[in-house]
């Protein structure tokens, strides 16, 4: 009973919590091109004078306000401009809000506009419209520094409840997708993927895929196992996101998972949006690790350039090797790493080196702990 009360108290406090959300500024930058890609066909048709109502569309409800040509076309082009402004961080609040509004409005204009990847994109857009994401990596921030005279790093504390909500949504997307496949015997048994492989067999061979590979993909026994692997991967990613200790592994698995989907299937903007969405799992704390470098060390310039999520405080000292003061251990004790361990830990937490460095660090630590075992 008391543990339930503790849990409720914990979540009650979480709703009011604030944190550093600068990582979502990177998500904001990535979402601009994804929105343009999502609207690409709509732009092309509008350039030819064709809008949604000129061809078959399927309204959800009679009462939903439909923009006529005179209004829809300016709204559409404004959304393109807003998406660019959103990425650039110019009038960020307005740009993110309008982009989210238009993408949502357009999706609900017609049932034929709906696709799961678009709903997923809309959820991300609403998140960055609610959370302030213009204080970093933005024209707005540059203007503030240039004309506002402030050189101090801006504070980016914001309420975190929208972040918790979008995390819930992302977990739901993976779980719901996986659950629907588990309870579908055709999916779980491999039939769906096998038929897809058979349908795409000739196209794959013509596109240069080896015949043995296409034969393997079209094989029912292979697909019986592969389907289970695919579904369980979705569950592993979703459940892995939920716990801090497994989160990095989940992100690490999600990257090749979405890259392979992008290669093997036509999923519109889903792969790009899902890869960009991995950013929401960055811990909303800034500068919670301190990297101490020997004076003049090249990492002194490289780390601030690559540390897009603001995880490291970089300091210089009269020392011989790199030192990383990591986040405190569970018992509050200081965690100090040095030399190769410090560098690989740091590389495993930078977005561009994470995917390669994280497994290398894991192997290194496993070997080291093996060597420490008494004979």
């Amino acid at each position: 009973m008391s543990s339930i009360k503790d849990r409720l108290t914990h979540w009650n406090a979480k709703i009011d919590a604030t944190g550093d959300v600068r990582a979502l500024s990177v998500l904001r930058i990535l979402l601009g091109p994804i929105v343009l890609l999502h609207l690409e066909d709509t732009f092309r048709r509008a350039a030819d004078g064709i809008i949604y109502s000129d061809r078959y569309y399927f309204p959800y409800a009679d009462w939903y306000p439909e923009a006529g040509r005179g209004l829809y076309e300016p709204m559409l082009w404004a959304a393109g401009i807003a998406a660019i402004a959103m990425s650039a961080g110019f009038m960020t609040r307005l740009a993110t809000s309008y982009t989210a509004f238009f993408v949502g409005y357009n999706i609900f204009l017609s049932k034929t506009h709906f696709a799961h990847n678009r709903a997923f994109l809309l959820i991300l857009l609403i998140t960055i419209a609610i959370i302030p994401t213009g204080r970093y990596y933005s024209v707005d921030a540059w203007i503030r520094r240039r004309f506002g005279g402030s050189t101090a790093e801006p504070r980016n504390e914001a309420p975190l409840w929208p972040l918790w909500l979008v995390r819930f949504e992302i977990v739901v997307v993976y779980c719901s997708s996986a659950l629907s496949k588990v309870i579908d015997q055709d999916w779980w048994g491999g039939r769906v993927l096998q038929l897809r492989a058979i349908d795409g067999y000739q196209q794959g061979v013509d596109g240069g895929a080896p015949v043995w590979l296409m034969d393997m993909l079209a094989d029912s026994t292979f697909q019986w196992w592969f389907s289970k692997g695919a579904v369980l991967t979705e569950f592993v990613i979703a459940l892995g996101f939920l716990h801090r200790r497994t989160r990095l592994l989940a992100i690490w698995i999600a990257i090749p998972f979405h890259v392979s989907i992008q290669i093997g299937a036509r999923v519109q903007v889903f792969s790009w949006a899902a890869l960009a969405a991995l950013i929401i799992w960055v811990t909303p704390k800034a500068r919670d690790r301190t990297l101490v470098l020997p004076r003049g060390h090249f990492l002194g310039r490289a780390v601030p350039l690559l540390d897009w999520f603001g995880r490291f405080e970089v300091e210089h000292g009269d020392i011989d090797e790199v030192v990383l003061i990591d986040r405190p251990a569970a018992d509050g004790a200081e965690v100090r790493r040095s030399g190769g361990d410090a560098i690989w830990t740091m590389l495993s937490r930078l977005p561009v080196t994470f995917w390669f460095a994280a497994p290398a660090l894991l192997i290194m630590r496993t070997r080291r702990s093996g060597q420490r075992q008494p004979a």
Partner: protein
Amino acid sequence: MVVAQLTMIVVAYDSDHKTFGFQMFPESSRWQAEIVRVECDGTRVPIGEDWEYRWWDLVRGRGLANPSVEHHADSGLRNQLGYFQGALDWVAENTPDDTTTCYLEAEVTSTDNGRPPVTRTFRSVERTVATEVEVDS
């Protein structure tokens, strides 16, 4: 919002388009349709013949532009055929220069994840055909 999302996931199991249900790539089903215009005197005319309109000018996207060619069912058969029924109705209601067709009818052949083909008939809403009345002065 949490409750709304979970509700939409449950409701999606019994809906055509599974809006916000996130059931990705549910099937490898296929479908194909032969559409005819049924004139008020009962004459059946394939839409590719002798019509003021072209289907693919009116219906694009979601794999609906060339229904006579067998296609993968985008997001499953229920989703695809739900859109197709909507397309038949929309075309019937948005072809004012057609003064002879009473409704559109389609013979749809679908295979549900490789099972034997099933053929069903889809029909659009009835059209109100404007008859021209010549008035002698």
